[in-house]
């Protein structure tokens, strides 16, 4: 059994209204030195198999399901 972490973020050129809302809220709350916030998603996937094999399977799943490659990019790594 492997645990694989997938981080999904909007591509840098895609506008992120949620991140902007968090940015403006952070300023209102006194975190005035915050200059940018981008909001993304994190998935923790448990999968039968180990190492490279599990990683490859989840990478395929991330490409087809967890992320939309038109607007998002993702990274896949084995959890410690």
């Amino acid at each position, binding site marked *: 059994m492997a645990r694989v972490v997938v981080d999904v973020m*909007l591509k840098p050129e*895609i*506008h992120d*209204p*949620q991140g902007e809302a968090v940015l403006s809220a952070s300023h209102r709350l006194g975190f005035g030195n915050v200059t940018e916030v981008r909001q993304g998603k994190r998935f923790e996937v448990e999968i039968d198999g180990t190492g490279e094999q599990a990683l490859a399977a989840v990478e395929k799943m991330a490409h087809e*399901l*967890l992320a*939309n490659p*038109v*607007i998002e990019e993702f990274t896949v790594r084995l959890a410690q």
Partner: protein
Amino acid sequence: MRIGVVTFPGSLDNSDAARAVRYAGAEPVPLWHADRDLSGVDAVILPGGFSYGDYLRCGAIARFSPVMQELVPAAKSGLPVLGICNGFQILCEAHLLPGALTRNLGRRFINRDVTIRIENDTSAWTSGYAAGQQVTVVLKSGEGAYIADEQTLAGLQARGQVLARYSGGNPNGSVADIAGVVSEAGNVAGLMPHPEHAIDLLTGPAADGLGFFTSVLKAVAVA
């Protein structure tokens, strides 16, 4: 003429879409997300709503439903398909249409009448309109901002695949004011605002939207 209207768990506008089909003079055929055949319909509408709760991304789960496994190859073979709002999101997630729909620029859910300008008057769903015609329909979406990369956008515009643009101001940040796009073959269309809510002055701001549903009858009759 029989036009299928798919209901996914979380669909909202299937009844209004079926009503628009009836107003246009065709028979609406209810299809269920778990159906494994399309009941031999002549065209399909994917209605608005929040299929599967919009979990993961709008339309991302609906794309993998059994009915979509039938619809995708049928659409690629020429079956007319119209995705409205959430249906448009599903068509983009299924890669039947290019680009994607993202959160409105102003972050707020928008619920108001809008005027769109018909750009493509030859598609299966818009042949009853004239290019440049202004049509009043209803926009109600939180993730309605259409985006596509520059190359895709240039291709869409060069091939006449922009179905309609917002007229009199861009409500949600859609690139190039795009309200809807159509496949290169002209049979698969996606539209963010709702024509099915604007088919009768009793219940909508105009009857302008009916043209989408009468257009497809003509397209099917010719095919």
